[in-house]
């Protein structure tokens, strides 16, 4: 069952292209994005990896600073936000608190914790960074990615498990800016909202320094993710 194509934006499928390649082709940058083409493609490749290797949902691509960050004037490069399938990071003090609550309630082991929306900053492994770049990235992002900001990426709607050939990469041009209207195509991959708008944000999210996931793409197309905190945060017990 395929969704109606938006014929003005999607390109005809080319069977010689890989799934990733097709996906990149199908998601063109918005017109008002000032980033270079390679930054955009890098972001798309990381988004693809998040979706298909790690099962992230609600992946969005951001070209502008968060609305909350009034002082930041630009985002150095496109940034991704999404929802991991499980909670990705728990502060060591939060771990202690959760375990104490468990003990008080007489339960054993680990409770269900809702996943939290995370920022992902794509980068190539051979790049050289500076502290200033990290500072700028953090200054431009809010502590918690807002759910409605950024442009939604569209992946294949028929989620087959038999490899890429069977997937139809329905690319729609991702909308730009905050709160722009999207086409009416329903998103199959998940309408589950994480900390929905009704929930108060986790105090551990807002009380602790901001964090992003730094995605490093290597020449062999593997992507490895590192958590970077904007401040002094003690390491987790692993």
């Amino acid at each position, binding site marked *: 069952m395929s969704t109606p194509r938006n014929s003005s934006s999607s390109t005809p499928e080319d069977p010689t292209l890989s799934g990733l390649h097709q996906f990149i082709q199908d998601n063109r940058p918005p017109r008002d994005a000032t980033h270079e083409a390679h930054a955009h493609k890098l972001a798309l490749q990381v988004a693809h990896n998040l979706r298909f290797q790690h099962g992230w949902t609600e992946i969005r691509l951001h070209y502008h600073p968060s609305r909350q960050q009034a002082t930041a004037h630009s985002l150095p490069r496109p940034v991704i936000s999404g929802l991991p399938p499980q909670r990705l990071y728990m502060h060591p003090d939060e771990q202690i608190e959760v375990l104490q609550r468990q003990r008080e309630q007489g339960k054993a082991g680990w409770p269900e914790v809702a996943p939290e929306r995370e920022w992902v900053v794509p980068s190539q492994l051979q790049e050289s960074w*500076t502290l200033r770049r990290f500072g700028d990235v953090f200054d431009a992002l809010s502590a918690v990615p807002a759910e409605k900001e950024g442009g939604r990426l569209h992946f294949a709607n028929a989620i087959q498990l038999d490899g890429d050939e069977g997937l139809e990469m329905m690319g729609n041009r991702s909308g730009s800016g905050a709160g722009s209207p999207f086409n009416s195509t329903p998103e199959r991959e998940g309408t589950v909202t994480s900390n929905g708008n009704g929930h108060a944000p986790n105090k551990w999210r807002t009380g602790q320094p901001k964090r992003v996931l730094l995605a490093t793409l290597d020449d062999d197309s593997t992507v490895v993710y590192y958590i970077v*905190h904007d401040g*002094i*945060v003690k390491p987790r017990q692993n």
Partner: protein
Amino acid sequence: MSASRPSSAASTLVPIYLVAHRYMLYDVDTVSALRRDHHIIGTLIGTLPQSPQQNVFCGLPLELMPEEARLLVEVGVAYIVDDVKAHKQGFLDRGLSGEERKMYVNALQRQGADAARVTRMRAAERRERGLAQRREKQARKDLIKSTIEGVDTQTEDGSDNPRDMLTDRTCMTESGSVSTVTDKTINEEEEMQGDALLFTSRENSTSVREDSRSATPASVQSLRHKLAPLPDDEIQPITPTTSYPPLPQHPNEDSPPLSTLPLPTVPTSYPLFKFLHSRGYFLAPGLRFGCQYMAYPGDPLRYHSHFLCNGLDWDQDFDLMELVGGGRLGTGVKKGFLIGGEEQEGKARAFCVEWSGM
């Protein structure tokens, strides 16, 4: 001892001695005060020249990193002294008078003589203990043999000790003379006698002669009472560990300052060092993890370090591979990898990296 006198670090500036590009501290009270009050730990580097070791169990002196020395000067706790110059000034120029010098040298000689005496005493005691043990062993053997065989063990010749030596000792209790003396015992006795002369001191004038023949440890003790002058080559040479009995430790206000120096030069990671120090972290050199510093949340004797730290300029380029390497190493050893620098004048900012686990 440190409880009885006030902490010098609190009342006066602490001198940090610059010796060949290293910042050293020699006084244990200073070292402990700095650790307690200013959470500066330094590295103990004192070890024997004949058997150097590379663990954490060295003793004084304490070596400070240039960052630590600079921070202490900036905070107003310490000042840097060019040690070579200060010694030259102190001993040669402004000088100790001839009398002071003589007194100091005599004091050192006395220390050396005392040390030599103590060494000999210990050697004599050891020898005594060894002999007593052998005697006991032989006596036990004899007892067993006599109960089993009923043989007069006095004439038994089965032991490996010359029997005359042992029999002589056992019957030689209070008599002033020795009945049968063999060569071995003569030598031992002479040695004992020679030692006896050494072990006496002026204060007690008990006669030595009677005691010299018996060889129990108690008698050795009494031999110490008469003092005889030690030959010069037996006095142990003493190398003093601090120069501060003869030299004044803190310069007087009216005397000219002992060559104080400007601030130590530090690498570009100094702003991060200062930032972490101001947050209460104890910082140690990070060479063993390939980073610049290790940050402990409390005293290193009580806590493991939390972070491996690298300080950079705000606009300094670094390879992402270094970040990745540091982050992975940190995660592997249960520490965070911290990079930071001075964002604006006087304000530092740090970022912590760890592997995400994805």
